[in-house]
């Protein structure tokens, strides 16, 4: 049984079509990487899954429940999200960023929430930064707090929206390592990223999205070595050249 099933989803912003007839399925513990040129609808697809954006038609099932029949706050508790710009709560410490959701959404006590937050900060290698404010952390550290914040809510699925695109090159590695650890640990991840090294090593499936349509989808070896469509090969080749 698949954890996430996206079924013929259409979405347009006004007259501008963004997603057209997008369908795919993901199993538990699977890592899916979505690639595609700028404006191809990758981020919109992620935002449709946790209903930050509403789809026009089609269905999305999480664990066999249509997501529009689930309370949106409950859905978002079950589907974590990591942002390109980190979006850490600027007025809260690293620990406070994690405990806010734990206390307000999961209803944990202050002590429980803080213990859990510290545990997750330790997992992303930031045990010593729990009292730091976002402005005092490097981009890589901020993004690791962002991952810990999503992770601490015990989500069934985490969405990564270009998590390393806003980072200086030397900081990308520390974030990718955390993501690789998560993938090995069996977290179900849907990632929009241009990090082809990560896609090759951690992804179970790569989806190539262009112009709001899925052009090609398959295991990394197939898309990198033997793509069905020329466009896929060209695009992945360009990305690989750029980033390695």
């Amino acid at each position, binding site marked *: 049984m698949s954890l996430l099933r996206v079924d013929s989803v259409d979405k347009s912003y006004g007259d501008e079509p963004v997603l057209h007839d997008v369908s795919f399925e993901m199993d538990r513990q699977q890592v899916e990487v979505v690639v595609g040129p700028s404006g191809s609808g990758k981020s919109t697809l992620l935002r449709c899954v946790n209903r*930050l954006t509403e789809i026009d038609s089609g269905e999305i099932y999480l664990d066999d429940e249509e997501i529009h029949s689930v309370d949106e706050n409950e859905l978002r508790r079950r589907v974590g999200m990591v942002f390109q710009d980190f979006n*850490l*709560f600027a007025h809260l410490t690293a620990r406070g960023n994690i405990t806010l959701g734990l206390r307000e*959404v999961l209803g944990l006590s202050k002590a429980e929430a803080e213990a859990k937050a510290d545990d997750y900060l330790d997992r992303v290698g930031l045990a010593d930064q729990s009292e730091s404010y976002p402005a005092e952390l490097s981009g890589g550290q901020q993004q690791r707090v962002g991952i810990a914040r*999503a992770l601490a809510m015990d989500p069934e699925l985490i969405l990564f929206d270009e998590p390393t695109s806003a980072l200086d090159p030397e900081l990308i590695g520390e974030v990718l390592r955390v993501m690789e650890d998560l993938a090995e640990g069996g977290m179900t991840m849907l990632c929009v990223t241009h990090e082809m090294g990560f896609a090759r090593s951690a992804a179970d499936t790569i989806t190539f999205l262009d112009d709001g349509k899925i052009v090609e989808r398959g295991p990394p070896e197939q898309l990198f070595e033997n793509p069905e469509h020329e466009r896929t090969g060209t695009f992945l080749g360009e990305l690989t050249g750029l980033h390695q």
Partner: protein
Amino acid sequence: MSADTVDSAVGTIRGRKKVVAGVVGGALWLWLLARWAAHNTLLDSVFTTIGLPDLIRSEVRVGVREPWIPAAPFEAIADAIGGVAAAVGPAGFFFEWLAWPFELAAFATSTGPALAEGAFITVYLTVFSMAFGLVIAVPLAVTRVYGGPVSSRLSLAYTELIRGTPLLAQLFFFYFGLPLAGIIGSVGIMELSGMPRTAAVVAIIAFTINSSAYQAEYIRAALQSVDEGQLTAARSVGLSKLEGIRHVVLPQGLRFAIPGWTNEFVYLIKYSSLAAFITVPDMFRRARDIGSDTFQYTEIYVVVGLCYLGLVITTAMAMNRLEDRLSVPGIGQSAGRE
């Protein structure tokens, strides 16, 4: 001096000047608080009940309060300088100027007690109106920024109506137009000692409504300067829109709003003087009455002007301190601008 300037709490006032401003401001407030304690009928009855009737004497209904600082030394200096002025003939005008500050000081000490009583009313008019205004302004601003098309327009309409009409007109509308004074007057508790008079209550209502519109504008601008990704992130964790606003947007937005809020505070201290026109015996009205009793209009308006200046500067200093206290790295810190 460098150690003093690093953590300066008072905006652009630095080092020694800050200390001077702090001492003068502190002395003003110490004197005001002592005066209020001595004049307060409520405190007086409290001390009488616990058996210490003479510890603080409020001299209930004594029209003229005794000044604590004698005027005589200032008068003596002024007279001495005046004597020199008479002796040197035509060049004496210079000495007459020199004598004037001392005459003013003598006048200030004798009018001080009445002004202090008025200042008490000025301060509570301002503080209550700011506090109640904030309670109205926060939902107004949130509705304006995050509300639906109808509610945000209603909020806008309220703000524009209140900002677009003169405060004095609003005050007269509430006092002379609406039967507010009668309604408030008929409430039993107004007769108790220590309660403000009905005109003061009407003034607080009018100032609250007026101030809420201005405060809402400052807060709206501050809320809009909070990055929208903050609310998106809050919602992605599973917080509802309202919870996200409450726990993420407002704590940041209200910090951004403090400078604007200080501005409104300072305005209201001075605009509260309009209450004098509906018979509230605030600081300005005391000054006006003293002026028409003594005909020393220049002196009394200089003195009362300095009193307002003292209130305004100490308030601004306190608000700067508050802003520094509430700042966190990345929000509201001035380190980069020093």
